[in-house]
């Protein structure tokens, strides 16, 4: 068992290492840098710009810069933001927390809804209720995330039910704890809803297909023949049997929800990684971009690692296989 997880962990680290190198390479290959913009400002002397470049060691060769970045990563700084004049890590952490708040809530809710809905639909395969779900999810699938988010914003503006941006009201600090939670929930409602609507159709369809496939399996018929109830059959027998592809999809859905979240954060001005990364890219704030990319990679890899662990836990056949290797 330890070998299985150690191997997975080693893969994960290799992947993150590879991504960090590529992120470094691509951001360097992209034309221009932070100081090009400053240079255009006639009020700043060329000597000052040159001094800044020297200070941030922007002209050193790539491998040396990578090495010093790794060094700063080890010291928990993740490089230096030119725009904020501060180490990247603390800036990133606050925003990562906000992004995770959205992504994790949306992942939990999406699966919490998709599982029962997919099973319900699979049980009624071909009936009117199942077809309505199929049509509904197909309709949601063809609407781009951006249109969904904008539509929800319009709704919020027209009705005034939800705040249309940000994460907290102006006088948040003066609220009681309960009031704070309510305020946060209200602010989260729209971005979460947008994420849900974009993620749900795919999940529901996969759950439905996977469960429908195993529902015809003779061992389920046999179990039904032993006199167990339909509900137990669906959730204790069919769902675990259909779980393998769904667990893999879970790993993938974490990544999809994260990338969806970055877009929706920008549209709904949620103070997460999304707007931060966009701003950094436009300003060519090199190390912030690399930090943002790396955060996304770690999150994605973590999602897949959890999926692997779940698979290992859920399927004894994988345990036997990895045990015999």
């Amino acid at each position, binding site marked *: 068992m330890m070998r299985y997880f150690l191997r997975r962990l080693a893969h994960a680290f290799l992947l993150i290492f590879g991504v960090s190198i590529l992120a470094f390479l691509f951001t360097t290959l992209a034309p221009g840098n932070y100081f090009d913009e400053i240079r255009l400002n006639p009020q700043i002397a060329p000597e000052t710009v040159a001094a800044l470049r020297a200070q941030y060691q922007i002209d050193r060769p790539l491998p040396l810069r990578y090495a010093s970045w790794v060094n700063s990563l080890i010291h928990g700084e993740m490089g230096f933001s030119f725009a904020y004049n501060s180490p990247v890590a603390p800036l990133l952490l606050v925003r990562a927390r906000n992004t995770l708040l959205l992504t994790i809530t949306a992942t939990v809710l999406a699966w919490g809804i998709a599982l029962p809905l997919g099973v319900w639909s699979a049980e009624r395969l071909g009936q009117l209720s199942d077809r309505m779900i199929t049509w509904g999810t197909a309709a949601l699938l063809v609407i781009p995330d951006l249109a969904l988010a904008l539509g929800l914003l319009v709704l919020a503006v027209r009705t005034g039910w939800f705040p249309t941006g940000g994460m907290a009201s102006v006088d948040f600090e003066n609220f009681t704890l309960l009031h704070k939670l309510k305020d946060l929930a209200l602010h989260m409602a729209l971005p979460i809803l947008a994420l849900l609507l974009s993620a749900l159709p795919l999940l529901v369809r996969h759950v439905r297909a996977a469960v429908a496939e195993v529902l015809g*399996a*003779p*061992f389920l*018929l*046999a*179990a*039904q*023949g*032993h*006199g*167990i*109830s339909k509900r137990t059959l669906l959730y204790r*027998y069919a769902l*675990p*049997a259909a779980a393998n592809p769904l667990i893999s999809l879970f790993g993938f859905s974490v990544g999809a929800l994260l990338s969806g979240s970055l877009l929706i954060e920008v549209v709904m001005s949620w103070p997460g990684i999304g707007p931060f990364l966009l701003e950094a890219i436009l300003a060519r704030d090199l190390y912030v971009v690399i930090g943002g990319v790396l955060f996304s990679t770690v999150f994605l890899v973590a999602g897949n690692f959890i999926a692997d662990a779940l698979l290992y836990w*859920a*399927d*004894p*056949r994988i345990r*036997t296989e990895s045990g015999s290797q």
Partner: protein
Amino acid sequence: MQPLLRVENLAKRYARRNAAGGREDVLALDGVSFEIVPGTTLAVVGESGSGKSTLALCLACLEDPTSGSVWYEGKDIIKLAEKERRKIRPQIQLIFQDPANSLNPRWKVLEILREPLVLRGGISREEMKERAYSLLGRVGLSVEITERLPGELSGGQRQRLAIARALALEPKVLILDEALSALDCSVQAQIANLLVELQSSLRMTYVFITHDLGMAEHVADEIVVMNDGRIVEQGRVEEVLRQPRQEITRRLVAAAPRLARVPMAPIGR
């Protein structure tokens, strides 16, 4: 003697999409009627697509027929409410053709045997384990396999396990839907032996569904020949097979090499 199961005018109609995309009705069962006396074996033979498996599912309360009745112990089990049928199901067990699919691939042998025992309720964990061991012994399996997954067993072992699992519920009727046809010849004979043995010791009633007339002749008392969802011929097994009256029966007899050679090694009775 009072029949244990009496099937009256059973019909099952499926809606199916045809090649042109339109819907068409398929009659899988059409006016099927027969009786089974307790402690005997009824063979149901026919070519594939003749409605044998649909019949098996209907008898086991796993599929609703379109019309007709199945009388079991004085009750028409088709008309019963789902809750009542759940109580009947354990008494009429179905053994499937492919044991590889009829056992949960994620469960170990012990868990597979424990499942029906849990459903019956009122048995302690320790007692369950003992029952599982005795069931394994009953079908000729070693207790050493309890920690294995079905994927690690041979075809014959899996089918024995499927039979043991059905026996755990102490059923009165065992429906064997092509239960031997996925196994190789020597294993077939062993399992057939086991079935005959179990029948004499537990006085079980079998519905033996097969396309193998040779096997049908060896295990069955009565036989029903099906074609296109209808029963075309029925009677004592030796009478029907020695003097087939219908063309389809003659074709089936001609296709069974062992019948022409007769006597096959006696298997256990």
